[in-house]
């Protein structure tokens, strides 16, 4: 460690002496790495399992590759969310260390030495988070498989190829370093005079509207252009890809415009908070650190948006699947000539169908129609379901026919839809978890920095519950500012996605969307619980002490 420059050494020593903060900073990356490593381990295991009994290794590789590609879309989203969150936590952590960075500059550290020290710190943080995440994923994977095997499910043993997890750790390091670049550059720009006690207003500085507005406008134009192009493309998969790309560009626009939107939202909320001092405080704080608030709320909007798009998409796909069953299965029971038993001769098939129809028609429990070679059977009004089953079984089975129960097809479809819903919610959920974690961590770090101010307010007469309420209100505001655009834009993109692949747009699942929005605000407040507890413990006298 002697070889490092002292700025870097101090940063790394700081990680060793204050591991809690490092863990907090890297938490989002850790979660994303659990996800990425989990995906890699899963696909490795899947490949081995498929290869074991497969005559055609190439098609197995292709299948596994497409599974991995699908997973990496979601891993990528979670990583992007984690990067934004970690970028924000780094900014907070460094704002708190302003004096120390300035001291380094004072005694002769160059800008690049300070910047490099922050990047080194980010690399170590990313390494810690990455290794932690990889270990959690591998252990959890082995445990899951062991539990499944013990409970008698036939699953293959876990496969651990070191390349995957190592790659995921590297990815975590890169993501963290990239996230820290803006903070690192800002750290290099901390004026040395700050060390002598001059106020530093880096974080208090408002967002630069002149730079942000044109960029955001450009991104929105790009969003619309890409989205419109997507709807014009006939190929469904290409269209969906373009719509997704448009969504990502819109997210970038949100990141750029976020601080301005948060400031605007805070201004809009001010009249609502006029009568309660803690609420006014919460609004003022959200506005004052609008860059910080925006970083968490945009990630939240991403997570919520993905979920909302998913809800709308699945609603549309489910409605489409159900409609297609109703179209293709016009009766409760279909009796068809069995292709395997009958020669593919049209007249012969017709004869089989007619015979089956005649037999079925003798049963009083059944109403029978024919449509070409298809015999359509419905239960008679008021018929006992069991009697219907027996009647169909005795009259329809055998003699070269096959019986299809529409109810079974419906159940199968619902099962598939349920699986798709569960899996995709799980995949998107990781991004949501990262976002909510990011909110909690950001709030916790922000409050730590504001301890003196809170103490002063307490000394001036803010009650303990008032202080807690202010924190909860701040979390709720952030949750709201993330959830509302997330739900609206996400639902919009869900509709666009359905249009792109040519599925009719259903009535939006308003209840689910409202539940998602409300749920997020509640979770945001819950994520602030630890901070609320701590803020209640701040002693009023603390504000009068120096340091």
């Amino acid at each position, binding site marked *: 460690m002697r070889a490092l420059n*002292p700025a870097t*050494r101090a940063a790394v020593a700081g990680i060793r*002496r204050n591991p809690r903060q490092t863990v907090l900073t890297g938490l989002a990356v850790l979660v994303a790495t659990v996800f990425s490593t989990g995906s890699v381990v899963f696909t490795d295991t899947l490949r081995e399992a498929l290869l074991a009994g497969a005559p055609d290794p190439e098609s197995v590789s292709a299948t596994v590759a497409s599974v991995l590609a699908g997973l990496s879309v979601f891993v990528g989203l979670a990583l992007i969310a984690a990067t934004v969150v970690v970028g924000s936590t780094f900014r907070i952590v460094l704002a708190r260390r302003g004096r120390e960075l300035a001291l380094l*500059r004072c*005694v002769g550290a*160059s800008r690049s030495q300070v910047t490099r020290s922050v990047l080194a710190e980010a690399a170590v943080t990313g390494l810690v988070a990455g290794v932690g995440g990889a270990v959690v994923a591998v252990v959890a994977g082995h445990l899951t498989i062991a539990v499944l095997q013990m409970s008698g499910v036939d699953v293959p043993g876990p496969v651990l190829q070191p390349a995957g997890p190592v790659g995921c750790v590297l990815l975590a390091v890169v993501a963290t370093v990239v996230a820290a670049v803006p903070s690192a550059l800002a750290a290099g720009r901390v004026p040395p005079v700050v060390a002598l*006690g001059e106020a530093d207003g880096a974080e208090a500085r408002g967002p630069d509207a002149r730079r942000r507005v044109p960029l955001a406008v450009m991104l929105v134009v790009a969003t619309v252009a890409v989205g419109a192009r997507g709807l014009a493309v006939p190929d469904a998969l290409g269209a969906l890809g373009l719509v997704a790309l448009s969504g990502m560009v819109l997210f970038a626009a949100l990141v750029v415009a976020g601080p301005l939107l948060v400031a605007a939202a805070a201004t809009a909320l001010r009249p609502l908070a006029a009568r309660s001092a803690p609420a006014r405080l919460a609004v003022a704080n959200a506005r004052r650190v609008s860059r910080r608030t925006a970083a968490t709320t945009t990630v939240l909007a991403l997570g919520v948006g993905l979920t909302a798009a998913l809800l709308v998409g699945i609603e549309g796909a489910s409605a489409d699947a159900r409609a297609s069953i109703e179209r293709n299965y016009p009766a409760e029971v279909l009796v068809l000539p069995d292709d395997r038993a009958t020669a593919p001769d049209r007249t012969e098939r017709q004869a089989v169908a007619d015979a089956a129809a005649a037999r079925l028609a003798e049963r009083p429990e059944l109403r029978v129609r024919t449509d070409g070679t298809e015999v359509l059977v419905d239960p008679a009004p008021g018929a006992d379901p069991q009697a219907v089953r027996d009647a169909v079984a005795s009259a329809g089975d055998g003699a070269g026919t096959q019986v299809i129960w529409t109810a079974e097809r419906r159940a199968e479809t619902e099962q598939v839809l349920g699986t798709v819903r569960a899996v995709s919610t799980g995949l998107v959920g990781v991004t949501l978890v990262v976002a909510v974690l990011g909110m909690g961590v950001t709030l916790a770090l922000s409050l730590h920095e504001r301890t003196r101010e809170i103490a002063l307010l307490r000394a001036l007469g803010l009650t303990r519950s008032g202080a807690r309420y202010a924190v909860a209100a701040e979390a709720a505001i952030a949750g709201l500012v993330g959830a509302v655009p997330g739900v609206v834009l996400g639902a919009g993109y869900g509709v666009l996605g359905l249009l792109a692949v040519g599925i009719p747009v259903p009535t939006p699942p308003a209840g689910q969307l409202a539940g998602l929005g409300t749920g997020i605000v509640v979770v945001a407040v819950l994520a602030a619980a630890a901070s609320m507890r701590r803020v209640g413990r701040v002693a009023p006298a603390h504000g009068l002490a120096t340091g």
Partner: protein
Amino acid sequence: MTAPRVAAAAIGLVRAYGEGRGAVRALDGVTLWLPAGRFTAVMGPSGSGKSTLLHCLAGLDRPTAGQVLLGDTDLGALGEAARTAVRRDRIGFVFQDGNLLGHLSAGENIDLAASLAGRRPDRGWRTELVDRLGIGDRLRHLPGELSGGQRQRVAVARALLGRPEIVVADEPTGALDTESGRELLGLLRGCVDDYGQTVVMVTHDPLAASVSDQVLLLRDGTAAGRLADPTPGTVLSALGELGTGGRRPAPVPS
């Protein structure tokens, strides 16, 4: 007595903040010089510009007009990187309350500037300084494990290790109790007397200023006088003449 060499000087120094009519001139044409190997105190009421003067002398801030000379170097004409190198190699800093890096040991803090420059500190000189300042058994401790006085002595060792052309001290006794403060001033005085170190110190405290060889007085951003061989009494009366009365007791709130 021959005139001593000049370690650093300000010539017609102006530092204005803001622009146009709203501009505030924290320094408004200050000319003064710091004799080499002497202890200079800078005093003046709040807002007199003494902090700004110190920042300019230390290469932390750039003058709006006029010159700041360190030896033959005009600090105002240097770019950011060159000023950083000057701070690292030619200036020592002692701030109020230590200002050490909390995660580095006392010893590592002392070596800070040298290791930033990628140099090995002069071992013999380091040992002498550490012994002289009485912190030899504290080098492995973190700043948080040291007393305020010990932290300030570590800061002094850090400032002196590179044999800088000047040591800049900003209220070095501000956060210390009376006894530790007196000790620290004695140590600074000793460095001037025994090692020929040039020290410039900004302070509010007439007692602290009386340890120096000369007191430079500032008022409203201009030089307002010089006091050679100060005593607490002469410093107080000089401050009184500035129209501030030194440290008046704060009015008791009713």
